[in-house]
C-alpha cells in the first residue's frame, strides 16, 4: 500500500535478513578473509598474507585431491543420472496419479534417514566378509573388494544422490506436454528415438539441474570418501576436515574451501547456461 517501509513490514522481513547476514553471509566472507591470515602461537592472527595460498596451491597433494574430487563427483553425477533416468521416465509416463504420489512419498523418505547410518550399513554390505560378498559366494563368485576404493565411494555417493535425482528428473518430465510425444509417435518416431529426440531435449533443464545437484552433493561429501573409500588418498572435503580437526590451520582449510566454492560456482554457472541455452540463438 504505502511506499515507505512500515514497522510491520520491517518486523516481518528483518529477522531472517539479519540472521542470514550475520550467520550465513558473514561467516562465508570471513572464510575468504581468514585465508589470508597466518597462524602464530596456535592462534589465528589477522594478516594479509598469501602464504597459505602459495602453500596449498603449490602442493601436489592438493591438486591430486582436487582432480580426484572432480573425477569422483562427475562420475557420481553421470552414473546417478543414468541410473535414475529409466526410473524417472517410468514414473512420469507409465504410472497413474495415485501411484506417482506414492512413489514421490517413498522417495522423500531417505532424506529423513541418517546418511551416516546408511553409510555404516553399506560398510556391512560391502565389506570383504559382508552381505554382498556372502551372497555372491553362494553363486561361486567373488569375493570382490568393494570398500576402501573408488567403487565404495561411488556407491555411497549414488546412495546419497539417487533419490533427489529421480525426484528432480521426474518433476521436470512431468511438465512435458504429452501431445508432443503423441505427435512424435504419429510421425513414425519409435519409442526409443522419441526419448532422445523429444523427451530429453524437452526436459533438458531439469535433467541438467538434477545432475548439477548430484555433482554439488558429491563434491562436498566427506562421509563416503572417508568411510567407504578409506580416506586415502583424500578428497578436498577430507582435506578440510583433516586440517581443521588436527590443528589450528584453519586459514589453510579456508583456502581449500574457497577453491571448492569457486569450482562449484563455475560448474553451476556453466551448467545452468548450457541448460537454458536455446537452439537458434
Amino acid at each position, binding site marked *: 500500500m504505502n511506499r515507505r517501509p512500515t514497522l510491520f513490514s520491517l518486523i516481518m522481513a528483518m529477522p*531472517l535478513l539479519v540472521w542470514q547476514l550475520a550467520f550465513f553471509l*558473514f561467516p562465508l566472507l570471513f572464510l575468504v578473509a581468514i585465508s589470508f591470515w597466518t597462524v602464530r602461537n596456535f592462534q589465528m592472527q589477522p594478516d594479509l598474507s598469501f602464504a597459505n595460498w602459495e602453500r596449498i596451491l603449490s602442493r601436489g597433494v592438493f591438486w591430486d585431491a582436487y582432480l580426484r574430487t572432480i573425477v569422483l563427483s562427475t562420475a557420481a553425477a553421470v552414473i546417478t543420472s543414468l541410473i535414475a533416468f529409466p526410473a524417472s521416465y517410468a514414473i512420469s509416463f507409465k504410472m497413474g496419479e495415485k501411484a506417482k504420489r506414492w512413489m514421490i512419498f517413498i522417495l522423500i523418505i531417505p532424506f529423513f534417514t541418517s*546418511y551416516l547410518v546408511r553409510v555404516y550399513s553399506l560398510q556391512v554390505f560391502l565389506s570383504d566378509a559382508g552381505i554382498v560378498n556372502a551372497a555372491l559366494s553362494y553363486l561361486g563368485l567373488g569375493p570382490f573388494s568393494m570398500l576402501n576404493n573408488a567403487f565404495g565411494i561411488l556407491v555411497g555417493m549414488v546412495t546419497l544422490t539417487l533419490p533427489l535425482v529421480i525426484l528432480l528428473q521426474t518433476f521436470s518430465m512431468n511438465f512435458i506436454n504429452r501431445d508432443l510425444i503423441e505427435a512424435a509417435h504419429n510421425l513414425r518416431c519409435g519409442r526409443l528415438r522419441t526419448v532422445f529426440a523429444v523427451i530429453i531435449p524437452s526436459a533438458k533443464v531439469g535433467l541438467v539441474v538434477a545432475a548439477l545437484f548430484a555433482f554439488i552433493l558429491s563434491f562436498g561429501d566427506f562421509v563416503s570418501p572417508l568411510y567407504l573409500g578409506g580416506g586415502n588418498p583424500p578428497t578436498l572435503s577430507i582435506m578440510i576436515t583433516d586440517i581443521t580437526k588436527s590443528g589450528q590451520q584453519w586459514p589453510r582449510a579456508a583456502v581449500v574451501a574457497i577453491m571448492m566454492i569457486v569450482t562449484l560456482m563455475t560448474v553451476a554457472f556453466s551448467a545452468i547456461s548450457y541448460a537454458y541455452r536455446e537452439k537458434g540463438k
Partner: protein
Amino acid sequence: MGNENRIINILLKVHIALCLLFIFAPIAGSFVFSLNSDRFPSLPLGEFSTEWYRLIWEDPLVWSGFANTLIVGLTVAVIATALGFGGAYTDFRYNFFGKSFYLALALLPPTIPVVIMGLAMLAFLSRVNLSGTTISVIIAHGVMCSPFAMAIIRLRLSQMDPDLEAASWNMGGNQWQTLRHVIIPFTKPAIFAALFITMAVSFDEFAVAWFVSGLNETLPVKILGFLQGQVSPRINAIGSLAFISSMTLIILAQLLLRNPEEPKS
C-alpha cells in the same frame, strides 16, 4: 495409450524396483542389523538380539547426545519456523529493491556443501567465542533449516486467495490483527509442518554440528564418533530409533499439509 510394449514396461518396472532396493537396502539393513547379535553381520544372519538397544539405553553418552539433539532440535524448530515465516510473508506481500538478494540469502544455504559451512561457522563462532556450545549448533542449524520452513510456508501462502488479507483490512483489521486472525490461522498447517520438518532436518544434521559443537555433541555427532571407534553396531540401534522418530514427524507433517477443508488438487 497405444504403442505400449509389454516387455519394455516390465523392464522399466523392474528397474524401478532395483533402484528402490538399492536405496532402501541400507535403511532396511540397518534396522535388521540392529536386532542382530553379530557385531559384523554377514550371511547367514546371526541370532535375534536386542543387545544393541540395551547398550545404548544404558550409555550415558548416548543419552547426553540425545538430550543435546532434542534441545537443539526443539529450539531450532521454533527459530527456523519463525524466521522462515517472516521470509515467506515478505516474499508473498512485498516487492522491493534488492528482493532477489534477500531471497538468495534466505534460500541458498542448502546449496553450500556442509564441510564449507561447517568450517566457516567454526571460524566465525570461535572468533566471537561462541564455538563449542549448544548455542553454536542452534545458530548454524537456524541458518540451514529456515529455507525449508520458508519454502513450506510460502507454498501455503500461494494457495491463499490474495483478497483475504485485503478483506480483513477492509473489515477494520490492521496489519497485526490481520496477521493474527487471518494469515496465521490460514497457514497453521504449514507452520506445524515447518516445525516438524525443521526439527527432522536438525535431528539428522551431523556435519556442521560436528564442526561447531565441540564437546556438546549432538547425537549425530556421537554417531560420527562411533563410526570412527569400535562401538559401531550401536549405530544401527540409534539409527533405527532416529528413523522411526523422523518418519513419525514427517508423516504428521504430511497429514497436516493435506488440508481437509479444501478439495484435493
